[in-house]
């Protein structure tokens, strides 16, 4: 044991130390559990901490290492999982009363892959109910607080996962991103958050919000850790028909050459305004940093960017209204008894869903209704096509684009609670990527107002993860 445990703060270093027998997975887990004991009551990142299960898994991994077997690239690394990914026999709630204490009989594909790679599931993290929100205030089980300022939100919907990594409860976490739900909380909590290309990571076992937009991705404290996690969870899954049927090049390999010389970094000249000055200031520094590192700055236009928010708030709720129809009290989850079946549906759904979920179900049902489909959902699909086309044109001139991740730093808890539209604007810069199916990531890049973290968003075209990670790594390096 020649490596002090306290120096191991990244998944990469932990896995290396555990694989080589330098440290015990059990000690790693105990250190993170201790941190949870100290701060979780303030932060409330978790719906469920899996203390005993994590210790058992760690012991099993240590036994494997002792027996001389290779445990995998995430050997002994604790990971926090957003509570909308199915874990066999472990409650999976989506932070909703309608699934309170529901235990899936199967594991999500990402859970299988993490487990096969030696990762240790340490807890299920809080989220906006069914991933609908940008602050993790819409949870049936309480608000998650930003570890950098407890009176501020952690962002959302994957606020629990972002906060868990920022608070040191786990070196890595998984979230899901439908309109910014990984990148925005990553920015607000000062950690790395990646939404890969649609189809890069299997959605099997991810409880759907909007199926054509949802994508799982990692939170980490370093770009390299995010690459490590993506290398483990990415790749084709025959159980998800929309997963891309090809193997992806290792992003960790990509990072071995971090040069951005000649990389074309695009600035969207018609980007909608609305970001605070402290945020845009950091974005300018990011452009300068990449240029100084050898990148070429180019101007591009994405005219349809401005219509993304509107299209998104028709498409995502439309799909959600269908995806959430299965929560009817018949087979699992909450059931509120009533006189007949229709009354039971109504009573169950009235009691089980929170107000934001109900708002989106109604919005989506309306958008798909006979007589309104063409005017709303149908037009939103056309806008979606335009957005993808505009981005594709932009990526002929640029390898990556930089934008703010969030228009603001973390805002005070309760400050937008009564204004859904203000809340929706949090995802102004992240939503277009989901509509286009492209990858995007948020890189922590200094601080803004009140010393709170600011994230810069790096975007790329379909399967442009390699360029995106190299640009992100260059930004990260400049901060060290």
């Amino acid at each position: 044991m020649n490596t002090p445990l306290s120096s191991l703060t990244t998944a990469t270093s932990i896995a290396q130390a555990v694989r080589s027998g330098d440290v015990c997975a059990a000690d790693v887990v105990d250190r993170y559990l201790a941190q949870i004991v100290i701060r979780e009551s303030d932060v409330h990142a978790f719906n469920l901490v899996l203390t005993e299960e994590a210790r058992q898994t760690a012991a099993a991994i240590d036994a494997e290492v002792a027996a001389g077997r290779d445990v995998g690239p995430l050997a002994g690394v604790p990971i926090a999982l957003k509570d909308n990914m199915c874990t066999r026999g472990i409650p999976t709630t989506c932070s909703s009363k309608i699934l309170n204490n529901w235990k899936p009989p199967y594991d999500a594909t990402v859970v299988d892959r993490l487990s096969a790679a030696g990762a240790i599931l340490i807890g299920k993290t809080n989220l906006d109910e069914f991933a609908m929100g940008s602050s993790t205030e819409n949870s049936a089980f309480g608000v998650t607080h930003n570890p950098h300022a407890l009176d501020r939100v952690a962002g959302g919907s994957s606020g629990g996962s972002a906060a868990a990594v920022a608070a040191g409860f786990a070196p890595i976490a998984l979230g899901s991103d439908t309109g910014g739900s990984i990148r925005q909380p990553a920015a607000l909590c000062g950690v790395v958050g990646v939404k890969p290309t649609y189809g890069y990571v299997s959605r099997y076992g991810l409880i759907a919000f909007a199926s054509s937009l949802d994508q799982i991705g990692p939170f980490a404290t370093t770009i390299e850790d995010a690459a490590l996690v993506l290398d483990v969870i990415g790749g084709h899954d025959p159980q998800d028909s929309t997963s891309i049927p090809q193997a992806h090049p290792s992003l960790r390999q990509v990072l071995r050459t971090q040069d951005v010389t000649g990389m074309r970094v695009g600035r969207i000249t018609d980007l909608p305004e609305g970001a605070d000055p402290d945020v845009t200031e950091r974005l300018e520094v990011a452009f300068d940093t990449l240029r100084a590192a050898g990148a070429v700055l180019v101007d591009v236009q994405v005219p349809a960017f401005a219509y993304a928010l509107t299209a998104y708030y028709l498409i995502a709720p439309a799909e959600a209204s269908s995806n959430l129809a299965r929560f009817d009290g018949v087979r699992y989850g909450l059931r509120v008894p009533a006189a007949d079946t229709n009354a039971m549906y109504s009573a169950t759904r009235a009691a089980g869903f929170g107000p934001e979920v109900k708002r989106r179900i109604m919005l989506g049902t309306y958008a798909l209704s006979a007589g309104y489909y063409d005017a709303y959902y149908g037009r939103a699909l056309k806008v979606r096509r335009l957005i993808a086309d505009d981005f594709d044109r932009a990526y002929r001139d640029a390898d990556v684009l930089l934008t703010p991740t969030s228009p603001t730093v973390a805002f005070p808890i309760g400050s937008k609670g009564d204004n859904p539209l203000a809340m929706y604007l949090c995802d102004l810069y992240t939503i277009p990527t989901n509509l286009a199916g492209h990858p995007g990531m948020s890189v922590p890049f200094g601080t803004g107002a009140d010393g709170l973290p600011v994230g810069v968003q790096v975007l790329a075209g379909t399967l442009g993860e390699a360029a995106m990670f190299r640009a992100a790594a260059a930004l990260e390096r400049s901060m060290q």
Partner: protein
Amino acid sequence: MSDNRLVNPLDNGRPTLVDNLIDGWELVVGLEVHVELATATKLFSASANRFGDEPNIHIDPVTLGLPGALPVLNRHAVELAMRIGLALDCTVQPSTFHRKNYFYPDMPKAYQISQYDQPINIDGHLDLPNGQRIGIERAHLEEDTGKSTHVGGPSGRIHGSSHSLIDFNRAGVPLVEIVSRPDMRTAEEARQYVTELRGILLAVGASDAKMEEGSMRCDVNVSVHKPGTMFGTRCEIKNVNSVRSLGRATEYEARRQIAMIEAGETVRQETRHWDENDGRTYTLRTKEDADDYRYFLEPDLVPLDPSPEWIQAVREALPMLPGARRTRLGAATGTAPDSEAVMVVVERGQDDYVLAVGHLGGDVARALVHVKEAYADQGAEPSVAAQDLALLTRMEVGGKLTATQAKAVLADIVEAGGGDAQAIAVAKGFEALDTSSLEALVDQAIAENADAWSKFQAGEGKALGALVGAVMKSSQGKADGKLVTALLNAKKG
């Protein structure tokens, strides 16, 4: 009096059916037929597709619509759907899946995955045995629902029951829905369409197509109008569970609509339930309270675009279809392709056998008649060697056995699962009468049945039977009936 308590029009003296019209009204019938595909597993998951097992054993996260579960399309189901489409001369085209959203307890996801505006098969047709062509609008893939059982009540229906049980074994079973154009004009044509369609489905191995087990289900769209005018408002009839019910329900519904129109009422577009026991249809739901299904493209699946090579391979592997087999057998035997004998023998799959009798030097026309009459219990591969039947038919057309004798010999052969017709005929003491001795018997019959003879001479065909019967009796069955008839006609002059 509410609409669904109409007096049964069948009780009020049956109107006459003339030229396929009922009191001057023409029926317009279109059919939507759902068939369960004969795959090993479900349309979107690996659970078994099996009927009749203990409830809720063929289930999995996808079948139950558990949160996070995703559908994966069954390739074999696509192949069977293409077989159906190609057998119906449809165009197989690139297609997509949609979600059809509605709440029902036995539908696990609260939406059904179905094909909507881009179905896999479009624009085909089916030819009835009489040659009439019925258009096929589409034949698309979709998943079946689970099955609810309502218990604790008197009727087995949901009203009055105390609770319901759901069996999800059927949920997710692959279906193809075959939608005809409204090209049928009588209940009989509808029956023929379904019978022919069933024959095709069995021939291509797409489904076991058992209406009584629900693996083939018909919804009937019926309207009536005066010929030459616009089609009337249609009603859709559900719960039609046999070909017989199909005919009855269609007739009933047409007469109900005619009675309404003639009483000055208006037919409403609605879905009606056929009650087999009291022979009526009842309102299930009207157009106004129909669900808005909020169809949209299923985001969990990708477009289905079978390669031209795959389509061609499926086309080339199709077996000969019932219509072509009837044409072939009809031509070989000199019989109409829609004659009863040809229909029956092809349906039993015994046409290859009949043709084999011909190839072995037998008489195919006689073989057709014998197989139709004597092989009802034999399958597509009869136990009697074709060689044995060939010999029998040779003896028959060679005048060595009468039709009656041949029938008796064949009965023994079938009973024994084969045998030498020559030896059996000898053992039975059969020898056909020659023409001169037969003529004597004919003259004797004329003399003994003078009354019948004079009636026969006067052109009364019925009298022939008495005269032939007399000859058969006096010859102890050895006379050839056709020859006797010919002799009588000759004598009549």
